């Protein structure tokens, strides 16, 4: 398990991070127009993910840069700094710079360049602490020669492409002393000039201890848009030995001056799935069966004789069976083993435990458990957060473990298994468990709760899912910025799943993530409300009950409660919630579906149940807009549209109303 090559996950990391950068960019741009705190959160989260990923996958330069960016964002998020144009601009440049770094990472080239080092300094300066000059060593390593002669002649189209020689020369000026000589020989007469084309050229003498890579880095973005030569200023042995260290990628850095971005664009495909031949053969078989059934049913079209009714029914049943199998097989194509996510962790755990001086044994169980590719891709980050938190906060250092009578080596177990229609992933550590007192103290300090009196262990567990919550006194590049748990929950809930936490003081913590097998099709119960029809996801349903009128209590503030298995649960009247007319108003005339999400239960009042059905989920957001309490829509057999109830969303709405 220790010999897993981390490189195979680079592509996923790159894809995710580039998406994250896109999200950061659009959020920054929205922020520039005047945005809200949620935008800052989303930018912060994207930066945090990239930082974590780049540290995990061995790109320390990228991690260092994003760390500075994150620190700045943290100040904004905490309200210690107002967001202004200069910060937005700085962050946008960071996004650009990170994109460049990803391009270089994909090409296996050194990541740091003059721009990134400069940006890191700028960010650090903005945060208010300077990065020690030694940190810039990757770029500033002196070259053996005293300087360089750079011949730079942009192609005519470079300006229109948005690349600005002025900026490049400024960047060069940051590297050393410049003597710039403009070459005007190709500038046409005024009448013949297309002012948007570039006809200038430059001969630049750069003196100073600068590597060729640093110079090439400045021109990296434009090298296919210009003629460029970089020659040593004096005839000293030109030594452009690759001086940038610590990049895990293969050493393709030798001739870094001639780098290209050729393969940068190819990573922007829509993703692909590798499918086993056996799965495809199975599909072909099924399609063959379908064709046979169809031919059989076809016979009835010409001459239908009632005596052959039984045969028709048989044919239809066969059709239904084959369609179902075909559906399952097609869904199966998207199913991938969770091992591809789990395999990231051995390295992460090793690095983290070394860094923190802890001894950790990682156990991976159920790596072959399959789940939908979309779910798989999105569960990676939350799992990384949880694993990191477990090592950083959960597991203790050896001395402390010994003092509590435990072995030196802590155990972290990741286990995936099927339960019902769901996938369950458990992250179990045998550390100290949640520190109840510290969590309550922190929650009080952050104003999340008013008093620590009478708070149940369950509620303490809930507190750590609040945005901005963190008990770590010092922020590290591991965890403890308080980003994480709220993001974990949000990501999982967005996937239609839930996260639960169980702490055993002194004996460890268990996080349980429950995820749907697929996002494309859900099993649901069809319920009538007035003239409308709603689909309630089967995984959320505990049971359905018919209540008598006296089983329901009204409470002050307008809510209703009913008694279910010895506890009172709130009732959500779906007709009220969604504004449906002509629905049954009396509890005893309708049915209450008890549903559960995020560990709480409510009863949904509907008129009646119609039946169970598979629903192909259509996005409501894509076709209409987001509606609270609704997760999507589906099309029924008669062509009408039924809305799919978002149980977790309804419960959140309910508790918000209760709190109000």
């Amino acid at each position, binding site marked *: 398990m220790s010999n897993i090559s981390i490189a195979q996950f680079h592509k996923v990391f790159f894809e995710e991070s580039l998406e994250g950068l896109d999200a950061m960019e659009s959020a920054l741009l929205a922020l520039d127009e005047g945005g809200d705190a949620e935008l800052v959160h989303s930018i912060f989260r994207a930066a945090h993910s990239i930082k974590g990923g780049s540290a995990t996958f061995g790109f320390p330069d990228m991690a260092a840069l994003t760390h500075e960016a994150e620190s700045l964002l943290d100040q904004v998020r905490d309200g210690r700094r107002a967001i202004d144009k200069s910060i937005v601009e700085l962050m946008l440049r960071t996004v650009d710079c990170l994109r460049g770094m990803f391009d270089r990472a994909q090409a296996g080239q050194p990541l740091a360049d003059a721009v990134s080092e400069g940006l890191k300094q700028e960010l650090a300066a903005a945060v208010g602490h300077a990065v020690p000059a030694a940190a810039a060593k990757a770029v500033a390593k002196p070259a053996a020669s005293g300087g360089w002669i750079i011949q730079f002649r942009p192609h005519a189209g470079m300006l229109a492409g948005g690349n600005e020689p002025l900026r490049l020369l400024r960047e060069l000026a940051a590297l050393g002393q410049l003597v710039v000589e403009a070459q005007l020989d190709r*500038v046409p007469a005024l009448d013949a000039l297309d002012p948007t084309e570039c006809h200038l050229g430059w001969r630049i003498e750069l003196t100073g201890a600068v590597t060729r890579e640093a110079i090439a880095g400045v021109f990296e973005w434009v090298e296919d848009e210009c003629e460029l030569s970089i020659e040593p200023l004096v005839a000293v042995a030109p030594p452009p030995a690759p001086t940038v260290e610590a990049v895990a990628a293969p050493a393709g850095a030798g001739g870094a001056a001639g780098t290209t971005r050729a393969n940068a664009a190819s990573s922007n495909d829509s993703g692909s799935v590798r499918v086993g031949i056996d799965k495809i053969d199975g599909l072909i078989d099924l399609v063959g069966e379908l064709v046979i059934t169809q031919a059989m049913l076809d016979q009835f079209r010409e001459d239908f004789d009632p005596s052959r009714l039984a045969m028709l029914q048989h044919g239809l049943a066969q059709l239904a069976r084959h369609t179902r199998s075909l559906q399952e097989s097609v869904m199966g194509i998207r199913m991938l083993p969770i091992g591809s996510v789990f395999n990231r962790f051995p390295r992460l755990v090793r690095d983290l435990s070394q860094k923190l001086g802890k001894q950790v044994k990682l156990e991976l169980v159920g790596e072959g458990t399959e789940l939908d590719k979309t779910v798989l891709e999105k569960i990676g980050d939350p799992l990384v957060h949880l694993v990191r938190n477990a090592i950083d906060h959960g597991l203790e250092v050896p001395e402390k473990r010994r003092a509590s009578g435990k072995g030196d080596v802590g155990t972290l177990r990741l286990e995936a298994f099927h339960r019902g229609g769901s996938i369950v992933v458990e992250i179990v550590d045998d550390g100290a468990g949640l520190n109840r007192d510290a969590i309550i103290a922190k929650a009080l300090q952050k104003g999340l709760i008013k008093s620590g009196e009478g708070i149940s262990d369950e509620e303490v567990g809930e507190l750590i899912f609040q945005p901005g919550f963190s008990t770590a006194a010092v922020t590290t590049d591991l965890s403890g910025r308080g980003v994480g748990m709220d993001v974990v929950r949000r990501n999982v809930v967005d996937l239609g799943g839930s996260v639960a936490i169980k702490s055993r003081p002194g004996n460890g913590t268990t996080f349980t993530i429950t995820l749907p097998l697929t996002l494309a099709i859900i099993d649901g119960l069809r319920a009538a409300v007035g003239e409308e029809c709603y689909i309630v996801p089967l995984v959320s349903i505990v049971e359905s009950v018919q209540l008598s009128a006296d089983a329901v209590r009204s409470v002050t503030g307008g809510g209703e409660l009913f008694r279910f298995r010895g506890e009172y649960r709130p009732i959500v009247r779906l007709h009220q919630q969604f504004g449906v007319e002509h629905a049954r108003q009396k509890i005893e005339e309708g049915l209450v579906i008890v549903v559960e999400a995020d560990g709480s239960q409510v009863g949904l009042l509907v008129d009646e149940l119609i039946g169970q059905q598979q629903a192909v989920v259509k996005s409501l957001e894509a076709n209409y807009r987001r509606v609270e309490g609704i997760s999507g829509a589906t099309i029924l057999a008669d062509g009408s549209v039924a809305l799919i109830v978002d149980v977790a969303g309804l419960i959140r709405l309910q508790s918000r109303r209760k709190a109000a």
Partner: protein
Amino acid sequence: MGSKNKSDTPKGEVRVGMPADFRIGEVTDLHRQLRDALDGSAIVLDGGAVERVDTAALQLLVAFQHEARKRERALSWTAASAPLQDAAGQLGLAQILALPAKPA
């Protein structure tokens, strides 16, 4: 701010002001203005308002300078803002453009 070149017929003097955002998006417009300005015998350039400037803009000024010299037009600056000066200096064009001394 007086124009230094009033020796020719005053009628022949043309002033060309540069916009605050003097970048590639504006150069086509200014290109036209400068070509028209060559009809005058003396041309006064005002770069005092320039806040942002790019290579395309400076290249246009270079081409204009050449043309004006070729046609023996009197060319002068009333003002050149600091950003304009800096950019010209960075691109090695300050001397060619004969920019006035930096504003204090």
